[in-house]
């Protein structure tokens, strides 16, 4: 298995009274509350963490969100380009540029090809559909973003792999009459593609395309369902069964010296769920497309958004639900191995550690323990029992908590 470090570069320094009075902490919170000197310090710290990861063998994930306290990576290609330059060994996953917000997929492909060359072939390209406040910050129509996402992926793939261009593209959402990027990617025919989704039809399409499927905090059952949809789609299409390298999971993670320390510091990560997602109704449940019309009554009456959030944010509960890996190194290794078994096999664990109120020093300590004590325990694992990897989940077994 591989371990990855994902940090969203949050900004947990806005006074609580401001956050409590604000309608939303994303999209509409004025940027006067973001001190650029503090932001510069955060960039320094996290780039140092990435250098450490490069030294100790943890791969790196970047992403982007906009206009909020949850994330200062405002442009994933910019940040990923920096990471490509300050690292030498580990792989770098951009998960990813918001392709439903950016107007020109060709520019995205061009930026990624450039990063792949700078990193000498260490780039992995991830796609996220995004939604909600990102649509507002990017003035992108929130309707039909799934169709837009697939057309963008198709155009990016053709742009990365066409070597005898220019070619022309006149699609539903994007037009570009003269596509011919320089440089072309370092990896041939192109860097591997990843996507973050738990939407089952989308997981099935990822399966048919062989794109790495990442689940974000989905827990055991939701993740298993998603991976099963992926495997089933490949089976039905007559494609070979996927390897575990096609599956990835992002969880909150803290590796402490002791179980007590792991849970105590892991608890600080909950800020991400308790504070950083506060969003006005027009940016969430009432945004067009946020829920399918037939689901609106349930969503609107309960105030639920499209993506259910954990209701109990105690670190031990999150661990129990498979949404957090926390404890001493042996405990964390055991949790990850158990997760791998219960979701039917997985290769990539993305650890969200520097999140919420976790400090730079705490994050680096966790990374060192993860690389030194956890990662070795995840190598050369025996194959999972065939019953565990079958997409036809056995009733009563996959659902056992």
């Amino acid at each position, binding site marked *: 298995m591989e371990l990855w470090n994902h940090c969203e570069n949050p900004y947990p320094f806005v006074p609580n009274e401001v956050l409590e009075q604000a309608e939303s902490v994303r999209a509409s919170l004025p940027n006067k509350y973001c001190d650029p000197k503090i932001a510069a310090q955060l960039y320094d710290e996290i780039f140092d963490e990435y250098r450490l990861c490069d030294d100790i063998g943890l791969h790196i994930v970047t992403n982007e969100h906009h206009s909020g306290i949850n994330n200062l990576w405002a442009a994933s290609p910019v940040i990923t380009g920096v990471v490509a330059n300050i690292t030498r060994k580990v792989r770098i996953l951009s998960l990813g540029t918001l392709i439903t917000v950016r107007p020109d997929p060709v520019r995205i492909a061009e930026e990624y090809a450039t990063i792949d060359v700078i990193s000498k072939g260490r780039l992995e390209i991830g796609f996220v559909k995004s939604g909600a406040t990102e649509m*507002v910050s990017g003035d992108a*129509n929130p*309707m039909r973003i799934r169709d837009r996402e697939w057309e963008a992926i198709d155009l990016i793939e053709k742009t990365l792999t066409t070597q005898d261009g220019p070619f022309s593209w006149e699609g539903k959402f994007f037009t570009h009459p003269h596509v011919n990027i320089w440089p072309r990617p370092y990896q041939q025919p192109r860097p591997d593609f990843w996507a973050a989704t738990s939407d089952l039809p989308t997981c099935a399409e990822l399966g048919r395309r062989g794109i790495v499927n990442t689940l974000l905090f989905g827990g055991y059952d939701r993740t298993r369902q998603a991976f099963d949809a992926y495997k089933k789609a490949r089976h039905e299409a007559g494609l070979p069964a996927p390897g575990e390298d096609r599956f990835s999971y992002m969880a909150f993670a803290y590796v402490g010296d002791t179980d007590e320390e792991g849970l105590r510091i892991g608890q600080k990560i909950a800020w991400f769920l308790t504070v950083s997602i506060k969003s006005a109704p*027009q940016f969430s449940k009432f945004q*067009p*497309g946020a*829920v*399918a*019309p037939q689901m*609106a009554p349930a969503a609107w009456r309960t105030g639920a958004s499209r993506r259910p959030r954990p209701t109990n944010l105690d670190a031990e509960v999150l661990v129990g639900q498979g949404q957090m890996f926390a404890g001493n190194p042996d405990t964390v290794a055991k949790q990850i191995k158990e997760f791998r078994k219960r979701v039917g096999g997985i290769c990539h664990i993305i650890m969200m550690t520097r999140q919420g109120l976790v400090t730079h020093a705490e994050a680096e300590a966790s990374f060192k323990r993860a690389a030194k004590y956890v990662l070795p325990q995840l190598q050369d694992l025996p194959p999972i029992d065939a019953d565990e990897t079958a997409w036809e989940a056995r009733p009563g077994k996959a659902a056992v908590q």
Partner: protein
Amino acid sequence: MQRSAAARLRVRPFDLEMVRVGGKRRDAPTLLLLHGINPISPTAPFLDLLAEHAHLAAPSHPGFGNSPDMGDCDTIYDLVHLYRGVLDALPAEKVTLVGFSFGGWIAAEVAAAGHPKLDKLILVAPFGIKLAGREERDFPHLFNTNPAELNRRAWHDPTRCPTGSYGIGWHVAIGDAMSDEDMVTLARNWDSLCLYAWRPHMYNPQLKHWLHRIAVPALALWGASDRIVTPEYGRAYAALIPGATFSVIEAAGHHPELEQPRAFVERVSRFIGGGDGRP
């Protein structure tokens, strides 16, 4: 008075849901009503009042109410051609086009494009054009503004919104009294409006250059308390239409046909009867 809430109107490629209310007099004029952010309720009081003076046809735009999804026909350009097709399909020789709010934008586009059956044009608090500077909004962003604020701006008296009809800011009415069926329809309408009008938001940057092409008598009706699309915007809008009359209805907001149905019908009937629509 003949009423059909379940009529359908076939206009390729759509089969539109349509409310039809027969006028009291056989020789009454025909009004084609283009709805705003939600279809016109068949029980809206202004319909019966208006049917004293005209035959009414009120289709639901594609993707709204029980009209089918729009597929790839998801732009205002498509709606303009659709409603030119609706004018072709209606049996009347002459038709007065009445557009409300979002539907007012469509009506202005259709009238600027012209149609041989078009007799008169009535715009009720229409969106559709950009007048203010690049750093000023002519109206709030419907999707990025808190619905409670939209509701406050949409009505003369938000505490006395008419029941049974949903105007801008309808989200505040969500509660035990609202049926699941209404919620599903409202969600569908909201999604469809977004497809047509997210960006540029609720206007066509080119339309104001062509309003001078409108060649039929036109009336712009505005609620005096409309804080979604203000009367000042309405006056400037009307001034771009040759010979248009601008008329304000007191004690009404963005939906004067719902908040002041009698005053609304009185203005409309006066205008279609040959007057200028002023009180």
